[in-house]
């Protein structure tokens, strides 16, 4: 489950105890995933977006105009940065954030009710459909929210806030017996 011997996960303390069997509503914490901020240069935003979007294993998370967090399920951090720089071909600046962010994947029948306790964004499928992503506040914590499946959302949070967000999500899910574990 560990990327390399000396990497310490921000939630190692929190998730140390043996996990309960996953309930219907479950929080999976990505052990790590390579990701990078992509800052498109002037006039290059659409071209950059298209070239990244053309790669199936890369996931674009909208952060602002001409700015994305790009998440990869397969690359290592340095590989991702190189890959993105190649893809963007000078049209964007790439900043590795793999160590600076933690991914939470929330899944289950009650996720929308759980998220509504912290997020002031209408995540009804009609307004926030599959593939949608946005920077939002969850309580007092800034996160990037994405809908990755009908009943699955990913929250990407700055590493330093990860413990706080974890506590918040567990409390938000208490009425639904939300469980949590590392995902891999």
């Amino acid at each position, binding site marked *: 489950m560990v990327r390399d011997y000396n*990497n*310490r996960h921000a939630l190692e303390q929190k998730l140390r105890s043996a996990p309960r069997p996953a309930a219907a509503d479950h929080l999976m914490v990505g052990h790590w995933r390579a990701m990078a901020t992509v800052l498109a240069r*002037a006039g290059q935003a659409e071209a950059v977006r298209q070239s990244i979007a053309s790669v199936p294993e890369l996931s674009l998370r909208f952060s602002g105009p001409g700015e994305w967090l790009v998440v990869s399920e397969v690359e290592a951090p340095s590989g991702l940065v190189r890959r993105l720089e190649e893809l963007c071909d000078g049209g964007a600046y790439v*900043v*590795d954030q793999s*160590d*600076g962010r933690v991914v939470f994947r929330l899944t289950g029948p009650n996720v929308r009710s759980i998220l509504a306790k912290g997020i002031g964004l209408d995540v*009804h499928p009609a307004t926030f459909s599959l593939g949608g992503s946005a920077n939002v506040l969850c309580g*007092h914590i800034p996160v990037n929210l994405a809908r990755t499946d009908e009943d699955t959302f990913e929250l990407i949070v700055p*590493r330093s806030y990860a413990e706080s967000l974890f506590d918040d999500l567990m409390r938000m899910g208490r009425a639904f017996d939300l469980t949590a574990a590392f995902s891999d």
Partner: protein
Amino acid sequence: MSGYRLSSGGLIDRSKTLSFTFDGSPLRGFAGDTLASALLANDQLLVGRSFKYHRPRGIVSTGPSEPNALVTIGSGARTDANTKATVAELYGGLTARSQNRWPSLAFDIGAVNGVLSPFLGAGFYYKTFMWPKQFWERIYEPFIRRAAGLGRAVLERDPEAYEKSWAFCDLLVVGAGPSGLMAALTAGRAGLRVIVADEDFRLGGSLLSTSETIDGAPASVFADRTVAELQSLPNVTLLSRTTVFGWYDDNVFGAVERVQKHVAEPSSKLVSERVWRIVAKRALLATGAEERPLVFGGNDRPGVMMAGAMTTFAERYGVAAGKTVALFTSGSAGYRTARTLSAKGVAIAAIVDARAESGDQAPDGVRVIRSASIVDTKGRQRLKGIVVERSGFEELIACDALGMSGGWSPVVHLACQRGAKPVWSEALKAFAAPDVGGGLRPVGAANGIYTLAGCLSDGAEKAATIAADLGFNAVSAAVPVVDAEEASSFTALWYVPGAKSKAFVDFQNDVHAKDLGLALREGFGHVEHAKRYTTNGMATDQGKLSNINAVGILAGMRGVSPAEVGTTTFRPFYTPVSLGALAGTARDEHAAPARKSPLHGWAMKNGATFVEAGLWHRSAWFPRAGEKTWRESVDREVLNVRANVGLCDVSTLGKIEVFGPDAAEFLNRLYCNPVLKLPVGKARYGLMLREDGFVFDDGTVSRFDEAHFFVTTTTAMAGPVMAHMEYCAQALWPELEVRFTSSTDQWAQMAIAGPKARAVLQQIVDGDISDGAFPFLSARKIVLKSGVAARLFRISFSGELAFELAVPAGNGEAVADQIMEAGRPHDICAYGVEALNVLRLEKGLLTHAEFDGRVTPDDAGLGRMLSMQKVDFIGKRLSTRYGLTAADRMQLVGLKAVDADKDMRAGAHLLKEGTKPSTLNDQGWVSSAGFSPVLGHAIALAFLKSGRERYGEKVIVFDKLRDQEIVAEVCDPVFVDPQNAKLKA
């Protein structure tokens, strides 16, 4: 015996008996009761004491307008004071206590105020308690304060949890009475996302307490059927026990749901209350109408209540308000109550009708006295009779309950919370909802429609219109048929003349009609003045019953229409909301998120004590065995860094990656010192100003390549600096091509400082870091021997040979461990922000203790950094103003205590020797102070008027807060190694 439980009827579950106590007496009620209905069923007529005169009071209403029946529910940390018994759902084990009485509810010493009432008229306190002067503070005020308030708050930690939730909908229906349910049904069937919120625990509103039938069945059956259908629709959310308390901009509503207020043993999985923030495209105000009390002599006797409340007690709760009930009415409502009660076998003593004639039908055999009024009531703590006056003749009629009805006012509170005033309607004899646009429309009784059929069709029509507006295919729902519809009418009657005793307008605050007269006489005739002077409408019910009558009475006295008097301002909250519910989860340790450094675990392993630094937890010092005080640890850490080497976590500094062809130009305009020609591979200390010329933040700027800079900020200002850069890039200079993003969380950053820093670090780093290869202010991307990609900076905040090493956050702990291991032969230690602070103090380096927002670069001794040759930078222009450059400004100096045993404290002020403390004589202040373990005495940084000219002068360090004045010598702020020999080693 007055109130009693009827043998049948009501929407209560007679198979579920609930035990509860009132003032310690065990009582019983049924599931479906409110505390009020259960109390009344037990003939507990006396339920409270009023605020000012401590008069005995009984239940008046069945809803949130209740002014009298305020009780304290629960005990210990679960105490809820001032709870309205009329909205408190009964549960088994509920304990309720009466309030504002001593020693007991039946015998209350405070009632003596009633005797003194001629002296305690409206505003009496403004005219008295002034002689002699010192008596106010010592005698009068403590006395008044003791009398203040109603219930008692325990101020203990609340064991229960609260939360908030967002909700979004096409249509919010506020109130689940006939019009609200009909509207929800229409919209729900059309496919709109609908939310229905109702404050009651059972949905149905007036459908639950009317004797009318719909489609041949009791109205409550229609309510239940409709609720069931709404529950089955996935696009409809029903929120019972949920009060919409506020209407805010953009059609956002605040509502509070009482999730577990009605259970004896709350589940730990659920919250006590939940605040909903509801974003609604459209909303319907289906809040019904409020019946008006009549203002007549003795109208506050326990047993006098609203006629509609009597109906509700009978129909919904199966409780009769009395054995022999009289009614006093100016409209048809009184007759309706008489019919309802009569049908249930309650004796009706008489209907006293203020009107000369009407078509209203009294029950068979019931005496109707027309053109009559009640001028007094008899009894003490419960009603025994009424004095009826007609054509100058008085008659005493025995009764044990009196229902009063002065007509109806639409409940339009929410519609008036955003500045619009309610509009007087001559037709309705009431203030109606203002037109506030399509976002929020009144419907049903809130819209002045007082027939059941009218409410149902208004609900259906309005919802259909909204559905069409929002592009839904509205199927017009068939409006059910109301059988034997009853007409409704009334005459407005604000004040019943001829009162033989106090005629109360505001029951809870004891404002009676004469108080309003006094207010008018003293010039407080404006409705807002009258309210403030008499306190009418300022009680916990916020005048739901009293305001309209006060307006009518003022209008009468001033000889104008109520329209001209107008209303006082409606503001949130519609009914009181607990602070806990509004606060939600962000409280206690969770009041703000906690940010943890990637080296937090490393610091814990090394025994750190942590301190709050904004949102961050930072390691403050690392106590070792045998060290008794923090000072011992800090002194050791400082001395070790000066003698050997130490490692400090500086990950919390703000870090920003700046890119672009114009990045250099951009940064050059941000910093007051030059950045444009910063060489690649170099770092520089930088100072940002605000546009007004004062220091904003300091930090470093490094250049990794032509178009890639790296900026660090102080921990505290990381957010503001980022925002400032975004403002400059986006709003001021969008023509510059520059892009940046925060990388604060990506890096674990550690300072390795001390003469042996290089020796330690060289074991970790791949490549030469000797002074020649990696001189002071170098900044480079490097690779560690372990293969970890890192960044290395040669910068120092301690005055020692020092490096800052940044590695990816996840590797931070391992690398720090490695350094500690490599440093062990060199006596490395972990040091925290306290030692860091002493180290920088000894070197005269500055933090936000110095940069307090009122300091110029020159004040701080950094005037040479200002690059006035630059065409422009933020703060350049205003930095040259007279006041920012005057010779007598306070300038940064060092202070050394003359007596080495004395310490100094930040926050002390400075005086010239021989002068007395005064604002005029104030020479400056101490910004940072501490003990220098290197020098062995206290040192301080201070701002002193024209300080740089005054080195060598003795000043008094004035710290009156601990009664200390010591003498210190003014000196250069750099106490240690002024030549920077160690730094550049």
